[in-house]
C-alpha cells in the first residue's frame, strides 16, 4: 500500500510535467490546447529520430530537440492560436482539436502505428532502482522525474514572480487591454507562453518515452491525464496543477491495487468527483453559475 502511494507520486510527477504547459496556457490565454498531448508525443518522436540517427542518449537528444520544439511553439501561436483567440470562445478548442487530428495522422504517415520506447536507450536511468524497506522501491527514473517536476514548477514560479518578463505575462493574463496600454506587446507574451508550454510538453513527451511506450495516437490519452491534473488541482493555479498531478497518479496506482484494469478509471472517477464537488454543489444552484 505504501509502495503503491509512493509509485503513485512518481507517476503523478510525470503527469504534473505533462500538465504544466497546459496549465500555463490556460492561465495566460484561457485556452485549453486540445493538441497538447499530441505535441508531447511529437516531442518524443523528434527525440526518437535523433537517438536512432545518432546513437546519442535520449537526454542529450532532448537538448537538441528542445530548440526545435520551442520554435514550433512560436509558430503555433503566431499562426493558429493568435487568430483563434480573436474569434469566438469555441474557436481555440475547435482549431486545436483539428490540429490534434492533423498531428496524429501526420505522425502515423511518417512513423507507422508501431509503438516505440526510449527506455532501452537510457541505460541505468531506466533500469536502476533501490529497495528501501519492506516492499518499497524507489526507481531512479521516478526520482529524476519528480526532481525535474519540482525544478520546472519552481523555475516557472520564479520566472513569474521575480522577472519583469514574468510580471508582464501575469499582467497580460489578467488584463490584456490594460497591458497593451502599459506598452506590453501581448502577441509576444502569448508567443512566449506557448513556447514555454510546448517546451515543457516536449519534456513530458521525453518522460513518456522513457517510462513506457508511445505511438502516434498516444496524444489524446496524455491530454486527458494532463487536463485531469489541471482540474483536480484547480484551474488557474500553477502549484495546484503539480498537486493535482500527484493526486491523479496516486489515485491511479491505488486503483490498480484493486485491479490493474482500474488504473485509468480511478483517475477518471477522481476527476469527475472533483468536478461534481466543485461545480455541483448547492451554492451554485442558487443564482446560476459564477462568472
Amino acid at each position, binding site marked *: 500500500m505504501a509502495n503503491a502511494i509512493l509509485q503513485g507520486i512518481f507517476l503523478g510527477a510525470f503527469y504534473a510535467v505533462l500538465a504544466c504547459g497546459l496549465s500555463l496556457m490556460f492561465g495566460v490565454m484561457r485556452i485549453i490546447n486540445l493538441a497538447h498531448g499530441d505535441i508531447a508525443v511529437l516531442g518524443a518522436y523528434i527525440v526518437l529520430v535523433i537517438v536512432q540517427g545518432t546513437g546519442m542518449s535520449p537526454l542529450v537528444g532532448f537538448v537538441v530537440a528542445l530548440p526545435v520544439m520551442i520554435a514550433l511553439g512560436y509558430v503555433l501561436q503566431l499562426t493558429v492560436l493568435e487568430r483563434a483567440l480573436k474569434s469566438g470562445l469555441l474557436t481555440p478548442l475547435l482549431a486545436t*482539436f483539428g*490540429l490534434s*487530428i*492533423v498531428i496524429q*495522422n501526420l505522425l502515423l504517415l511518417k512513423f507507422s502505428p508501431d509503438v516505440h520506447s526510449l527506455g532501452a536507450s537510457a541505460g541505468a536511468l531506466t533500469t536502476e532502482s533501490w529497495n528501501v524497506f519492506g516492499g518499497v522501491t524507489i526507481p531512479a527514473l521516478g526520482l529524476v522525474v519528480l526532481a525535474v517536476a519540482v525544478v520546472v514548477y519552481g523555475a516557472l514560479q520564479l520566472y513569474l514572480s521575480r522577472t519583469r518578463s514574468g510580471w508582464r505575462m501575469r499582467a497580460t493574463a489578467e488584463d490584456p487591454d490594460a497591458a497593451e496600454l502599459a506598452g506590453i506587446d501581448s502577441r509576444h507574451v502569448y508567443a512566449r507562453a506557448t513556447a514555454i508550454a510546448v517546451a515543457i510538453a516536449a519534456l513530458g513527451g521525453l518522460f513518456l518515452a522513457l517510462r513506457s511506450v508511445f505511438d502516434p495516437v498516444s496524444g489524446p490519452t496524455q491530454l*486527458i491525464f494532463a*487536463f485531469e491534473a489541471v482540474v483536480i488541482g484547480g*484551474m488557474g493555479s500553477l502549484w495546484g496543477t503539480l498537486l493535482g498531478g500527484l493526486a491523479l497518479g496516486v489515485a491511479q496506482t491505488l486503483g490498480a491495487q484493486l485491479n490493474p484494469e482500474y488504473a485509468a478509471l480511478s483517475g477518471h472517477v477522481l476527476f*469527475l468527483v472533483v*468536478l461534481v464537488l466543485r461545480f455541483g454543489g448547492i451554492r451554485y444552484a442558487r443564482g446560476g453559475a459564477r462568472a
Partner: protein
Amino acid sequence: MIVRRWTRTSRLFTGGTGVVVVLLAGLPLVFGPDIVQKTTTLLIFVLLAAMWNALAGYGGLLSVGQQAFIGLGAYGTILFADLGFPPYVAMIIALVVAGALSIPISLFALRLRAAQFAIGMWVIAEAASILVRLDQNLGAGTGIALSQLYSYDPNYRQAYTFWLALALTVIFLGALFFLLRSPLGTSLQAIRDDEDAARSLGVRVAARKRLLFVLAGFGCAGAGVLIVANTLFIEPGSVFSVQWSAYMIFMVLVGGLGTFEGPILGAILLFAIQTTFTQGGPWYLVGLGATAALFALLLPRGLWGAIEERLGLRLLPVGYQVVEKKK
C-alpha cells in the same frame, strides 16, 4: 411591413423535403442491401451532425464526448438483445435508456464552462469505454456482434435498419425544427447570440441548454443504435472513439454552425468524401482535421452560413423575415 415565417422558397423546400422523405422510404424496395447500407450511413451522419449542431450551434455547448452516448446506445442494444428482447425492440429500449442517462449527467456537466465541459464529456466517454471493456459479457476489448440479427435475411435486415434510421432522423430533426420554431427556439437563438443579454431578459438559459443536451443525448444514442444495426459488429475502441467527435465537428463546422441546413450539407459532404476516399487512412484524416481547423479560423459560419449571408436564403422556416407588405 409584416413579419413572416414562411416564404415561397421555404414553402417549396419544406414541401420538397417531405417528398424526399417519402421517396427515401421506398429506397429498399428499389435498391440492394449494399446501397441501402450506405444510405443508412449517410442518415447516421445527418443525425449526428444535427445533434452536435443542436449542442454547439444553438446551445453554445462544445462537446468532444458525444461518443459516450453513441457507445452506450450501441452496447445497450447488445445488452438488451442478450437479455432476450427482439433485436429491433432492444434497439428502441437501448435508445431510451442510453439517452435517459443524459439527464443525470446534465446535472453537473452543464455547470462546467467551455473547456471543462468539452473535455469533461470526453472523460465520461473514456470512463464508459473502460467500463464496457471490463465486462466480459459485452465482449471486453475485442468487440462483440449483434448476433441476433444474423437470423434475418440481409435484404430485410438492411431495410428495417434503414427505415429505423429514416424514422429516427425525421423524428430528431423534426423535434429540433419544431423546437426552433417555438418560443423556446427564439430564446435559444437569443442565447446563442448573447447569453448574458438573454439571461438578463429572463430567459431561463440553464433549462434551455438542458433540453438541448438531453435531445442530443437521445439523438446520439440513436446513432449508436443504428451503427450496431448497420455494421453488426462493434468494439469499444471504435464506437467510443473520439473520432466520432472529429466527424461531427467537421460536418458542422464545414456545413454551417448554428444553421439548420448546414449540418445536413456537412453530412452529405463527409459522406461523399468518405465514399470517394475509401482507402481512408491518415491522409484523409489529416485533410479532415486541417479543414475543420481552417473553417473554425477563417469561415466560422461554414459553407451554409456563407451561402445564407450572400443570398439571404433560408430554405427552412426557422427564422423570421421582415417583408414589405404589398399594397
